[in-house]
């Protein structure tokens, strides 16, 4: 990452989100960014993948909700998880809390990510994963679908298993990261 971005590479929204012009954002009407969130180049956010509903039926139109102070590094992918329910393949909304860092090249298909979560680079967060607050996911981790990661965990490996606990100061540490 160069220290100084070329001018105008980022679009800044009213709430202070910075979205790279080189990122791929689909279905932006279904994406909520909390504010002060940075989306780097080559990120893909699939807001177009939302719940399939019968025509005429109203559904919540949020596919991806991202909190404040999040950072999506280069080439990361946010994709709402999908599965077959009652014979129809449908996508489910993805919710991401505040102070979440997603490292380079990571693919996130989680259902819920809490606040203060650090996802290192080259990780795969499987479908419908629930990651609670204060979690660090080490580089190259592959978290199996439908996993639940409790708070104050360090997750590593393929498949990702909890390998350590974070200290009580995890919030402070992950806030800065």
């Amino acid at each position, binding site marked *: 990452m160069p220290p100084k971005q070329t001018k105008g590479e980022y679009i800044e929204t009213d709430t202070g989100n910075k979205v790279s012009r080189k990122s791929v954002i689909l279905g932006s009407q279904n994406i909520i960014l909390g504010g002060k969130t940075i989306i780097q180049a080559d990120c893909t956010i699939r807001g177009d993948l939302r719940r399939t509903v019968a025509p005429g039926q109203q559904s919540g139109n949020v596919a991806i909700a991202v909190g404040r102070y999040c950072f999506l590094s280069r080439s990361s992918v946010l994709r709402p998880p999908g599965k077959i329910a009652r014979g129809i393949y449908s996508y489910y909304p993805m919710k991401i809390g505040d102070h979440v860092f997603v490292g380079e090249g990571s693919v996130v298909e989680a259902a819920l990510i809490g606040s*203060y979560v650090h996802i290192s680079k080259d990780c795969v967060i*499987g479908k419908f994963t629930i990651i*609670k*607050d*204060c979690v660090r996911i080490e580089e190259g981790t*592959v978290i*199996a*679908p*439908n*996993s*639940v*990661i*409790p*708070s*104050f*965990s360090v997750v590593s490996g*393929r*498949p*990702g*298993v*909890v390998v350590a606990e974070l*200290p*009580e*100061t*995890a*919030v*402070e*540490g992950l806030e800065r990261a």
Partner: protein
Amino acid sequence: MVFPTIHISCPCADSISITPKPAKKKSRSHKAAEEEESEEEERFDPRSARSNFSLFPLESLLYCEDCNQIRCPRCVHDEIVCYFCPSCLFEVPSSAIKSDGNRCTRNCFSCPICFASLVVASTRDDQSGPYVLLCPHCHWSSSEIGIEFEKPTSITTQLAQKLKTVSTPSVTPAPSAPSDSYFPTISITPTISLPPNDAPRAPPTTAEMYQRLKVHYASQRASTGTDEFGSSNALSRLIGLYSSTSLTVGGPKPRSFSGGSGISKPLIGRDRKSEWSEMDHTLEIQNEDTTIAQLRKQGFAGTTSTAQRLNQGVPGPLFTQDVRPLAVLLRTKRSKRCRACRHILVKPESKVTTTRFRIKLVAMNYIPSLSISRLDPGSVSYNSLTPLTTHQFLLTVTNPLFDAINVTLATPQRTPGRFGTTVTILCPDFEVGANSDIWDEALGTGDAATGGKNTRKGKKTGNTGTVWDAGRNWTTVVIEIVPPLLPSEYTTDEAGGKDSPTEDDYLVQVPVSVRVEYETDVEREDGLGKEVKERREHTYWSVLGLGRIGKFGAPTTPLAVGTGGPVDVLGALGPSGVGLGRSSTYNVAKVGSSPPIVAGMVGMGVAGGLGKRNLK
């Protein structure tokens, strides 16, 4: 290893003051300070064998306000607040922990092959039964071991029933020969040779040893009867304590896994008597022929790894067809107490899903934090510091307290170890502003304005005795190191010789004593009286891991200059010469580019310059 690293030493190893309660706080702290002063004379050696266990990153340290001491994970007591399942996040009452074998009794299972959490999946397209436990990661299915469920709920009870009735293709009773139990991989290595029949008996398994011990104690108890020491009571209580847990030896879920698997079978019994006899009986059976036959049939792909086996209990199954889905182990939330004064340092909220703490006394909020960066970023990587060259680092001290602090840094001139690195802190004594409100500074009011005197503002000159830069609650000083030339760099063949440096010798670890002094308002417990200022001080050792010594990149430079020579010159000449050497602007601070004034430094400068170029 990622450099730079900063660790703080907890002195608990030296002064395990597990006294009931310090008699007088103030006098004790004074005394402690004096002791510490005397201790400071003897330097902290980051390479000593004990240091490994006393060094922690600041984040994992706690702070006891009563003892005015850092508390590391070693000198706190953990107390379990609640148990919960990490998979379903339900709290488990502590009364159920023991009977459930510390595992979740809901539908939480982990894969016996890859340890991911299993999901209940239907085997039909229409989502109807039968159901299996399926691993979403490695696609292991409980149908592989012949277990399917009629309904997708209450898997635990269903599984328990299944395991009672299921007939696995080959139930190998006590599948491991005794010698395999500890290092079970031995038995599946291709070069295994069967021990001859008259071979000495292999060491007993854990379960066997437990049984022997139990028999021993039982006989002892019988012989002593009720003696005056009351030991028989204690013994029987102990045995009672363990005999219930001994059930768990055989399998992860003894209560529900009874009978089905050959492993847990011997240990299961409604009454202890039958458990005993079965135990003794099954351990005698060591049918290696069936094991070998099965190994021939299944190949190595059908065998379990050490991790898989250990996860299944002791002794684990040898073949993947004998593994069982594992109920998820529970996790705990714990509060922490100071060992010396029993005060609570950390107390989390008892609700499982919250991350808040009722009490959280962490060292981050009490002692200044250190951070390290290179003064000339990008020129040399931390992993290859050029020997005999001056490397400059910026050491930033950040004050978390609401009072301005005086910081005194002390470091040995040469780091401990066989190949010492010369260290110079250009400004060892400085002030760090209070951690006041950011707005105070912005608005020009409050303590911060007075604290941020112009003299303290950074001039980035790097002259001796002045700080490099300072802000609201942080101050940066320059620290210089000259790594030694390791003998392996100039001796070609002497591998394994006494002088050849070990891996540790390549690391530059600088012990720095940080002494903090400040005046603070005393919190009066009665809430009355005038404000009293109390002078406090705190000293701790930290170890800066500044990098790894790299190759000496310039063979043309005079190698005759020993490690000691230029180092001493530099040390004696001191930072004035260095300061002059760095009078050029810092972002082009290549040592070789400035006019060196010492002969010794010429060589070093050239060496440094060349080294850098070579590295590029």
